[in-house]
């Protein structure tokens, strides 16, 4: 215990609020399951501000993006049914893959942040 400076203390911030939040799929996202059971998610994106005539006279941009999820990403997507909390999804993922809670949490939240970034899901706090 240091008396010369304030002793270090582990962060007392809880991540409970993140775990009790619920991921919700983007209703506008379209999904297609391939032959290998991998999921393709198509998400509509906003029209960029610079896509205006006369550019659009020559180029017809598509405002959609399609991502193919890997096996684990597909599993996470399947678990995001709008009812399960992040904690429940982590527990389910941990149980299937025989991982500890925090191993599964790190994997699941990694996939989720990617899905959020791509507009495929949103997190309801």
């Amino acid at each position, binding site marked *: *215990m240091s008396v010369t400076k304030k002793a270090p203390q582990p*962060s007392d911030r809880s991540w409970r609020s993140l775990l009790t939040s619920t991921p919700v799929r983007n209703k506008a996202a379209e999904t297609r399951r391939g032959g290998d059971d991998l999921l393709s998610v198509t998400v509509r994106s906003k029209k960029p501000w610079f896509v205006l005539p006369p550019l659009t006279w020559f180029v017809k941009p598509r405002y959609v993006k399609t991502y193919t999820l890997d*096996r684990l990403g597909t599993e996470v997507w399947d678990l995001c049914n709008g009812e399960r909390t992040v904690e429940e999804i982590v527990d389910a993922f941990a149980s299937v893959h*025989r991982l*500890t809670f925090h191993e599964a949490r790190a994997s699941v939240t990694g996939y989720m942040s990617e899905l959020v970034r791509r507009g495929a899901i949103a997190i309801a706090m």
Partner: protein
Amino acid sequence: MQQWVWRGFKMELPDDWECLQFSKEQKAGRIAFADRYQFRLEFSWQVIGGRPEMKRLIGDYIAKVKTETPEDEPVARNVGPWHGLKAGEKGSTLNTRFSRYFPTQSCLAEAVFLWPDSLDAGVERKILDSIAEERQTLPNFKRWKAFGMDLLASGDMVLEKVSVDPAYAQMAFSPSLASRKEERFERLGMVDHWLRGTVKEWLVRRLPRGIEVEAESKDTVAGHDVESLTGIAYYNGLAKLLGRKDHYEAAAWICPRDGRLYFARVTHPGPPESGPERRLAGGRLSCCGDLGLGT
């Protein structure tokens, strides 16, 4: 409760607490554990010159906390040989912190608990009672028990590298960066997602470049199918003329209990030594009680 052995200290912790932060430094460092919602325990160590006067140390510290954060209302709290305080009853998160001097290692250890709901004196006592210096049962080895591995590293080695990712943990030991001697232990999960072929084929793929395999074997040790191989690394140039070569031993197996793949490898300049503690599976690395160290 689960046991951890880290940097010569052993401790018993609740089963659902996981290590999320660690340092490998010998002189001063910390290791922090969290339950699923937040950090619960930080254990830190610092090598110091001699035994400190604990009562004065704690008294000074309480006075300091009273000055800096009076709302925390610190009060002295001792548990067995641990001297400490309780603070944060009304201010920040309720926490208790304890210090104890371990003379064998000349080390001042500190345990800081966070109690988000209420102080569980039983858990606090159990953990503090369990914190002790790990006695070396085998003279030339140091035990580490962390991230699902229970292992013996050579006594002259220091922990050089720790990598922890989901479904992957690695601890590597070496006397120094320049040394050719190295011991590495790994634990890999989600095996059915990445293992193509057999464990033996994987073990061969993990061979460092330049190793010439001398022998391969397959044994069943306490219900674990262990693939092993030994080899020799030859050198080129002057080192070759001087007859310099390294011995390489490696073993891998999938533990039937947790389904994870365990891997141990040792590289050393001298010839392999014999003895049960020299065997990698169950001698140097253990995955579960069935294949405990010394099996």
